[in-house]
């Protein structure tokens, strides 16, 4: 039987505010345990939450970016459950009247097609603390620094039909919230976490199958693998005569296995009700329009601009526009060197390969935009060849020198002086009697190919510094004189 997969995503995005959603405690990552958890975060009796305006502004920015209706009046609810990292005994969240209504996002697929993924809504809520289960002999250690960190939970419609689409959607969201500057995008620190709802059904059936939810995936690669695993598990189960249970599952990336966390029947009944500690939050049209006016250029608009303004390929444009830091770097290099295509090639080639192998982020690149542009300028003006440029790049990578300093110090400047080149060509021709004879006796259409030998010899003699174009011109002229 042919099977069809249906996937929907719930995405938790930590907002990059300085303080918590309901208290003035810091949200900075990596602090000593419980040093950023105040009386409100700890749910001490008598405390009252006061919402952080910035969290709303960020949520509204997101809503505007996905073309969603912004609720002028939104309400907080309590989701009740007991867990040690949730001191209040409820999570303050939004159920019926979320800040962001239905919207859309377009994803690009490897086939070149695009697909629109509908977003059901996005709501504001608070993050929980962290539980550490090891090292405490039968006890759990609780760190509440993360408790109260503002989140938006983005809920998609079940519009994705394979892992490629789900990952493309997740990446697009990542690019969007990073570009908006509302999330730091640090997946390894849990700044974005994905819950994936998956069901399968026989191809052609309209009714949805029973879905499972795989929780808390925090990398695109794990997400792709977890989806593949779950789809296979469900199909195997049904084909063996079983049925899929509606349940929450946990994916273990190390073992590439998943296990059931709790089934629907055991699931908590959250007994939501409106939070009496918080009044409705109201924004008028002027406020929302003022936020709209602050929206930065979005990745899609930037991609289109790169294609139009810089004549980049859509692949290059997509890659360079997706990340705000990367696009800023690219634009700075392009501005300094005046060649977008070369800038794109060097950033996506040498630079990103070197960053990857050194496990560095662009922000910590040893080579800033100005220095890379300096190198590209020397390629452009013919001072060095692309091949030599890679050598220069490596030296620059490991030092603070500019391209000009490296080229000067290492004597790598390309030889374009025709007199000097002509002398080298003469020497090579004089030392290659046999090849010259072959060249002369060959058919005219075979000759261009035979040029390669001579060019190679000259490049070797010049230690790669001869200007290849100038060499070619001189060589053709001299060889043709011998015919």
């Amino acid at each position, binding site marked *: 039987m042919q099977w069809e997969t249906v996937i929907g995503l719930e995405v938790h995005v930590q907002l990059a505010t300085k303080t918590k959603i309901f208290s*003035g405690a810091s949200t900075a990552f990596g602090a000593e345990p419980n040093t950023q*958890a105040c009386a409100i975060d700890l749910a001490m009796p008598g405390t009252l939450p006061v919402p952080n*305006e910035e969290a709303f502004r960020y949520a509204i920015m997101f809503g505007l970016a996905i073309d969603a209706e912004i609720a002028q009046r939104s309400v907080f609810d309590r989701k009740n459950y007991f867990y*040690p990292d949730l001191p209040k005994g409820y999570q303050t969240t939004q159920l019926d009247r979320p800040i962001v209504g239905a919207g859309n996002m377009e994803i690009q697929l490897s086939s070149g097609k695009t697909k629109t993924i509908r977003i059901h809504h996005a709501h504001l809520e608070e993050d929980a603390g962290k539980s550490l289960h090891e090292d405490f002999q039968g006890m*759990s*250690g609780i760190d509440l620094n993360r408790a109260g960190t503002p989140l938006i939970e983005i809920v998609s419609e079940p519009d994705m039909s394979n892992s490629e689409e789900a990952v493309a959607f997740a990446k697009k969201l990542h690019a969007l919230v990073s570009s908006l500057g509302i999330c730091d995008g640090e997946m390894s620190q849990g700044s974005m976490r994905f819950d994936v709802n998956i069901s399968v059904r026989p191809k052609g059936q309209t009714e949805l199958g029973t879905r499972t939810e795989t929780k808390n995936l925090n990398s695109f690669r794990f997400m792709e693998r977890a989806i593949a695993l779950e789809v296979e598990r469900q199909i195997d189960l049904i084909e063996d005569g079983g049925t899929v249970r509606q349940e929450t599952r946990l994916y273990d990336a190390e073992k590439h296995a998943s296990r059931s966390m709790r089934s629907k029947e055991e699931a908590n009944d959250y007994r939501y009700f409106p939070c009496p500690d918080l009044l409705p939050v109201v924004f008028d049209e002027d406020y929302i329009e003022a936020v709209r006016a602050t929206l930065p250029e979005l990745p899609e608009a930037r991609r289109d601009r790169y294609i139009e303004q810089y004549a980049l390929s859509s692949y290059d444009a997509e890659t360079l526009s997706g990340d705000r830091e990367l696009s800023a770097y690219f634009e700075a290099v392009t501005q300094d060197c005046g060649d977008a295509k070369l800038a794109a090639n060097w950033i996506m080639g040498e630079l990103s390969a070197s960053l990857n192998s050194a496990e560095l982020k662009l922000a910590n690149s040893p080579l800033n935009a100005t220095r890379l542009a300096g190198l590209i300028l020397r390629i452009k003006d013919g001072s060095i060849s692309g091949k030599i440029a890679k050598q220069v790049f490596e030296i620059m990578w490991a030092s603070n020198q500019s391209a000009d300093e490296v080229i000067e110090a290492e004597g790598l400047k390309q030889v374009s002086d025709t007199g000097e080149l002509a002398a080298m060509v003469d020497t090579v021709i004089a030392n290659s009697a046999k090849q010259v004879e072959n060249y002369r006796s060959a058919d005219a259409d075979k000759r261009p190919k035979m040029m390669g030998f001579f060019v190679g010899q000259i490049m070797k003699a010049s230690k790669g510094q001869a200007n290849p174009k100038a060499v070619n011109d001189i060589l053709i002229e001299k060889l043709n004189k011998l015919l």
Partner: protein
Amino acid sequence: MAVDRGTIEKLAELARIQISEANIDDVTTSISEILGLVDQLQAANTDNVAPMAHPLDAVQRLRADQVTENNQREDLQACAPEVEDGLFLVPQVID
């Protein structure tokens, strides 16, 4: 609307409230009676009334995104039964 004993037991479990065996029937009856009053309220026609999120007709005040609460761990952990390495210790719970 009446609730049965099973519902009360389930709610008590969810709310982590212990109701002694001897009291369950009383609690079930009391809550059923309260829900009877709610039924009377439900009878009112609310067709054109927006659901009320809060009894006060007021709008939430918001605060600026500035750190106002600095580290108070020592004070706040003074009343905790057990702490270690800055963490609160609780009986182990693994979901």
